[in-house]
């Protein structure tokens, strides 16, 4: 069995006396698609922030792509793509300028071709030179998706990725990320109707703690996968 792409042991984030994330231990296999569910304030965004290396854990440890998340190594950051709650793009710049800037930060080779490919796929190629501030929320999200994929990461951390997207945008998200073979994805989501169509595992958080773990790397997830595999063979 291959090593988990994402693994946490006792991961905790404390602000003052409040444990926003408490003792989270999960393992996510390479290439798997995991839905992170839970009510508002359950700790999903903070957990993703720690995995993305942006938030320093108070206790416990986490490895992503074999690298510890703290201190964050450049090699790790090259392998992670993040689609956060905010689009994280410059409103005053055009989509083309946004991608050109982030391509320089990531030292992307063949940046122009990569940016063109992504802008075409997210449907913003025709508007690549318009200032982003005139875009709708869904178009911002499409651009954010292109930014997250620009450096061809193999691990994607998504926070409510469907936000603002129309059905066509959701289809693009599905094609590029959620159903893309080989990509390891953890996505915090409230769209439970959509989860079943792309995820092969679920981690449910409640007040910072894992209350259900059915990921491919977990014991219950492994049992579920074996059951599903057995059922498949029987068919």
């Amino acid at each position, binding site marked *: 069995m291959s090593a988990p792409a994402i693994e946490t042991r006792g991961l905790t984030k404390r602000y003052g006396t409040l444990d926003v994330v408490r003792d989270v231990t999960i393992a996510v296999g390479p290439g798997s698609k995991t839905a992170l569910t839970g009510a508002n304030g359950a700790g999903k965004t903070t957990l993703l922030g720690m995995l993305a290396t942006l938030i320093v854990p108070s206790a416990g440890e986490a490895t992503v792509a074999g690298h510890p998340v703290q201190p964050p190594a450049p090699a790790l950051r090259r392998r992670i793509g993040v689609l*956060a709650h905010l689009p*994280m793009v410059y409103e005053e710049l055009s989509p083309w300028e946004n991608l050109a800037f982030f391509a320089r930060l990531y030292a992307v080779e063949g940046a122009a071709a990569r940016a063109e490919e992504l802008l075409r796929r997210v449907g913003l190629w025709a508007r690549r030179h318009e200032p982003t501030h005139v875009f709708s929320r869904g178009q911002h999200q499409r651009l954010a998706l292109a930014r997250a994929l620009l450096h061809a990461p193999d691990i994607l951390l998504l926070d409510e990725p469907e936000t603002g997207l129309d059905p066509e945008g959701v289809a693009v998200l599905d094609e590029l990320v959620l159903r893309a073979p080989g990509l390891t994805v953890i996505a915090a989501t409230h769209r439970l109707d959509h989860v079943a169509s792309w995820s092969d595992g679920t981690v449910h958080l409640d007040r910072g703690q894992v209350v259900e773990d059915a990921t491919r790397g977990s014991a219950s997830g492994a049992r579920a996968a074996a059951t599903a595999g057995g059922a498949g063979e029987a068919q």
Partner: protein
Amino acid sequence: MSATLAVLRKDLRLAWRDRSGWLSATAFAAISVLIYSFAFDLAAQPVRPLLPGVLWTTFLFAGIFAGAHSFQREAEQGTFDAMLLSPAPATAIYLGKALSHMLALLVIEVALLLLATILFSTALLTPDLALIVLVGTVGYVSLTTLLSTLGSRARARAVLLPALALPLLVPLLIAAVRATGASLGDPVGTAPWTLLLLVFGIWSSAGAALLFPLVVER
């Protein structure tokens, strides 16, 4: 280096496209100097020693206005986090932001010196004073860039930057005002104020570049 240049270029482009921060800082600076020129005849000998203080007070607040605006925008759009997520070293990002802030502030300062030269009938665009303003601006910007980053993550960001920056900038302001006075021929004693300004500039630049990766941690 490449990341620093990318951040510098991007920030200058943003400053040009969204001119509200720098325009309001420039307007503030121009209005301040204009009011001082009406209030005092600074070219006259008895109040002449006030001129360095007038200049540096105006530089100080113009820089705080403009810097806070730039960092607030990054915090609101989440783009600062997007930069931190990249493999670019945090120090390279800091240098890019500090350089862009410095270039934009220098433009305001040169414009202000030109205006003050006219209003106060005093030659202010001299090589000596240009050096003092440049060195003082390096020290000032390196510290305020660090503190703006810290302040942009706080809820009370509007008051945090001045509250943090002003006490830390006192040594720089004293040295800058004294060095400016000396360059204008005022009797300010024999202390090597320009050298002190240079030492502060080096200390604050090095310190801020080293501390920046810690400041951006959450």
